[in-house]
């Protein structure tokens, strides 16, 4: 466990002392601020119209459905591209700088290397998710927030970010080219969203059900709706574990290739 933590702290510190991580965070926050502001503004206008039309009857529009859910889906959209870019350096740079030799000749196992790096990648993306929490929290100062649904949505996006991070680390273990690995990471992340399309060409009900369970959109959608189900956790953790496992195989293969 100790070598895992050594690698984890080194990688995380690498992010937190690197100007590029701050630059990425800055532009990500900037874009998110703009979009959140626009969404909230248009929601308040619609809400006002609705109140006038309904003459104060009814519950009003749902803030979570119309703003927060959009906010979280938007984070997901950025992360599809951003996370593979953040994690691209994990193995490509080690291979380029020949520091991979150092890791492979140190008394640590491939599993420890991969676990340390994956934990750091997940932590680095979770920092970005945590920043996005500022928006709903500030909104709660002047509007009513449904905390329960917000929490479940954030569990969803935290898990999704962890999946993308594990995919990104896997992609970076495959080559020593930043460009190729970044591109592969993005494609694989996008692929997780399109796998479920397979259900449309399958006529077998069993296959359709299997494809349905593979659908990240379905599980993520449930978290956003406020329903926290074991199957959602199981799906996310198995994906993270799967990509962790194949990354471990790739790193281990350097020893016998």
């Amino acid at each position, binding site marked *: 466990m*100790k*070598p895992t933590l*050594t*690698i984890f702290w*080194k990688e995380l510190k*690498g992010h937190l*002392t*690197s100007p590029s991580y701050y630059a990425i965070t800055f532009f990500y926050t900037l874009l998110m601020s703009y979009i959140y502001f626009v969404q909230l503004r248009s929601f308040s206008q619609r809400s006002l119209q609705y109140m006038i039309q309904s003459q104060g009857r009814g519950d009003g529009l749902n803030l979570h459905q119309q703003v927060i859910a959009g906010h979280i889906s938007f984070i997901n959209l950025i992360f599809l591209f951003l996370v593979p870019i953040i994690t691209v350096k994990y193995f490509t740079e080690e291979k380029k*700088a*020949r*520091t*991979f*030799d*150092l*890791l*492979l*000749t*140190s*008394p*640590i*196992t491939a599993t420890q290397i991969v676990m340390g790096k994956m934990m750091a990648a997940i932590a680095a993306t979770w920092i970005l998710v945590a920043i996005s929490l500022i928006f709903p929290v500030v909104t709660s100062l002047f509007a009513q927030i449904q905390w329960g649904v917000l929490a479940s949505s954030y569990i969803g996006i935290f898990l999704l970010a962890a999946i993308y991070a594990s995919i990104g680390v896997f992609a970076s273990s495959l080559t020593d080219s930043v460009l190729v690995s970044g591109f592969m990471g993005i494609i694989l992340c996008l692929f997780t969203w399109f796998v479920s399309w397979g259900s449309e060409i399958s006529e077998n009900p069993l296959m359709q059900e299997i494809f349905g369970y593979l659908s990240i959109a379905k599980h993520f959608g449930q978290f956003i709706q406020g329903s926290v189900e074991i199957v959602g956790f199981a799906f996310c953790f198995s994906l993270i574990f799967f990509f962790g496992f194949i990354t471990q195989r790739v790193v281990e293969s350097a*020893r*016998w290739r």
Partner: protein
Amino acid sequence: MIEITNLTKSYGTLKAIDRLNFKVNKGEIVGFLGPNGAGKSTTMKIITGFMPPTDGMVKVSGFDVFEDPIEVKKRIGYLPETPPLYTDMYVQDYLAYVAKLKGVTKGKVKNGVDTALQKANLQDVRKRMIRNLSKGYRQRVGIAQAIVSDPEILILDEPTVGLDPKQVAEIRTLIRSLAGHHTVVLSTHILSEVQAICERIIIINKGKIVAEDTLEGLNRRMSGVTRLVLKIKRPNQEFEKSLKDMSGVVHCSGGHGLYSLDINDAQSMPEKIAEHAVKSNVGLLEMKSQDMNLEDIFIKLTS
């Protein structure tokens, strides 16, 4: 300490090393000498567990490199051809990280880093970023990372490459001072380097060991042959032939007034050759002795 039996590594049909056998004893400094592409780095990579062999066995302190890689790696400090440096880290942070990776316990990390900095003479740059260091300093950081965990065995792949003469001398002194406490295997293609540092020399060429001896033993084998370069003004065939036929001349090559002669007696032969040249009236312009280079040693040792 290190036992190598029938070690073979092939890349496709190319055999990088071919059935190597040798032993390194505790506290020794062994020089691995060979031209570029002889298989020095490959052998070292296999000993460190970085790369598997195609065939054969490596044992380090009684542990098989491929049965117990972790135990072996704990005991080895390795400096690869390219020092493995994280350029965006500070020198002391980097060394602390390597020490932790090598399994140095928490309380001993700081001490290990300080000792390594002091041994590699890096105290002045300990708070500098590796990116901003010159090549010589980077090489020294590379050596510092190899010794930071105080390993029993040091594997140094061309440790003095890229250093200026003063630094080369410092590093050689450093490596010599490590003997006894550490077992050192270092590779180089510079003959004078092994002569300056090593107690025992293994010469490797085209993946095979061509000689394995102590420094004195090798010198003894090499003694008796000296090379002379001879330059004359008026070459003629008769003189060339007489040179080749002279007793004491082992080998003669060249032509058109410039000859390279291997002679077996450095005391009397130069005088005889000079006399012969003067008598033949070919216009002796120059005569000097020349050091044998690695290639010549291989030719001598393998023939």
